[in-house]
């Protein structure tokens, strides 16, 4: 025994074995760290991409509504003496066709002679019909976009809003469909998935890297818009004696109903103040409320020795406040006491801190 302990020949094999064992352990650790770090980078990108994708669609919805409002400022050629307006500015309301005015110039709630007057009741009614048709198109677009973001009611029974968002996200970001990947999305702080919701999903994926993932869109709510009714004034003529009569003011909707039936709102469309919104970091340590979307992506990955590890990332993206305009009221340059709406379909989005 004593001889064996003192025998120093053949020491390399055990030392090599120890070094080799340590190296293998080290390599397993390196590979594990690599796989987890790489997966974290990957899921963070996926979460960013999902939040940006949905927020983009929400911004597109707002831009579409604003664009159609602005389109109503350019329905007819304003004539050689008028300067064409650009989005975000008030048209030259002095040199217009009084029977087909830009929507920003149509309002005249107090029969003010300095503001637009329709020449007859008939032309005002035709204008009301035209504006209502555009309002109906705006509603169609809003419904379509709400379906796209997984929040609408569907335009017919064969369309599932959940499947619309699934289709869009899986088509644009195919890796969301990889086994072991689950996604939660929301656009309202009140419907953000709870820690328990996410934990349940993590528990489902833990230990099973190839389980089919899921996209949970229950946190998505419809974007809401409302029509701001426009009051217009038209001239009248007293029959037989053929002299000007009183100027009459009505809402555009009143031209479209008879009797005492309730008048629909007809005018330009603006975001409803009661809009779903998320809470994002403001940069000064606080939070701010913005129209936007959030996403949590969870992915189970296989790592050597430890089996399955679940990684998670969260991202939010929001529509930049003031980046576009939909009915912002500004003074008319020709008549500063009167406020007119402007429209600028340039809403854009950015990623938020979480």
């Amino acid at each position, binding site marked *: 025994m004593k001889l064996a302990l003192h025998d120093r020949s053949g020491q390399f094999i055990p030392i090599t074995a120890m070094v080799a064992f340590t190296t293998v352990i080290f390599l397993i650790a390196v590979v594990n760290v690599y796989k987890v770090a790489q997966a974290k980078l990957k899921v963070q990108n996926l979460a*960013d991409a999902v939040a940006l994708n949905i927020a983009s669609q929400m911004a597109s919805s707002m831009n579409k509504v604003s664009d159609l409002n602005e389109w109503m400022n350019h329905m007819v050629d304003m004539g050689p003496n008028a300067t064409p307006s650009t989005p975000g500015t008030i048209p030259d309301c002095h040199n217009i066709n009084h029977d087909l005015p830009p929507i920003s110039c149509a309002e005249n709630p107090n029969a003010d002679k300095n503001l637009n007057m329709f020449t007859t009741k008939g032309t005002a009614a035709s204008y009301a019909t035209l504006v209502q048709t555009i309002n109906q198109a705006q509603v169609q677009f809003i419904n379509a976009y709400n379906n796209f973001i997984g929040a609408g009611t569907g335009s017919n029974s064969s369309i599932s809003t959940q499947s619309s968002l699934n289709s869009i996200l899986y088509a644009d970001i195919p890796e969301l469909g990889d086994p072991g990947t689950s996604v939660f999305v929301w656009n309202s702080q009140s419907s953000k998935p709870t820690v328990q919701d996410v934990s349940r999903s993590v528990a489902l994926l833990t230990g099973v890297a190839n389980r089919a993932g899921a996209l949970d869109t229950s946190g998505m709510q419809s974007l809401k818009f409302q029509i701001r009714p426009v009051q217009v004034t038209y001239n009248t003529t007293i029959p037989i004696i053929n002299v000007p009569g009183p100027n009459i003011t009505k809402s555009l909707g009143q031209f479209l109903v008879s009797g005492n039936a309730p008048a629909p709102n007809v005018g330009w469309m603006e975001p409803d103040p009661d809009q779903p919104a998320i809470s994002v970091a403001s940069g000064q340590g606080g939070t701010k409320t*913005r129209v936007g979307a959030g996403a949590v992506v969870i992915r189970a990955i296989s790592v050597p020795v430890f089996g399955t590890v679940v990684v998670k990332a969260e991202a939010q993206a929001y529509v930049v406040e003031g980046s576009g305009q939909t009915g912002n009221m500004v003074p008319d340059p020709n008549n500063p006491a009167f406020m007119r709406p402007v429209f600028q379909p340039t809403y854009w989005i950015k990623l938020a801190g979480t």
Partner: protein
Amino acid sequence: MMNRRGQAATEMVFVIPVLLTLAAAAMAVVYMCWQGIKVQEVANLAARVQGQERVAGGVDLATIQQDNGTNLRGDIDPTLASQPLDSAGLEALQGRQLPRPLPTTVYGKILKLVRDQFNVNELSGLFVPEPKYGLVGYSDQVKVVRIWQPPKYFGFNVPPITVEATAYGGEDSHAYGLVRWGHTTSGGGGSPFWAEQDQSNGQYNNLPNPNHD
């Protein structure tokens, strides 16, 4: 049989190559893990550039492609090959001189941004194929591929090791219906890109943000 003199030297003859092999393998694994993380990081960054700057409007399709830098093809995607890449295949790929888009184009900016993250020796095995547009169009896909050819070991040709990363980006919401205008005069002159973020300082140029939100 009982004479143990020279045993250590005999063991070393077998053990040292084993240790060297193990060390080389460990270094190779660590290096490629590091490269794998780096490739994913730059892919994420490149996807943000693609998402923020891809042009969708212009005078005609050729002008849009010119602004996006997608009219020259750029790098190929070596991962699409039907068979695993061998050393000869990698050499053939590295020898290909494809026309590269200008650094002022979107794809050109992505190429520059990715290539700036790697040192000169690594560039020959770096591939950034042309970004793919999303099927619906809100999120585009950017892929970065890094292929490393380990040195010959005791005369053996070790096959190239490939790491790849795909990332997604898309913020294409600037003015619905006027999506991200590029140059609006024929021939590429005239107005600047309608909207983009300057990656060097993070500032959004040409984008309305009156409230500095």
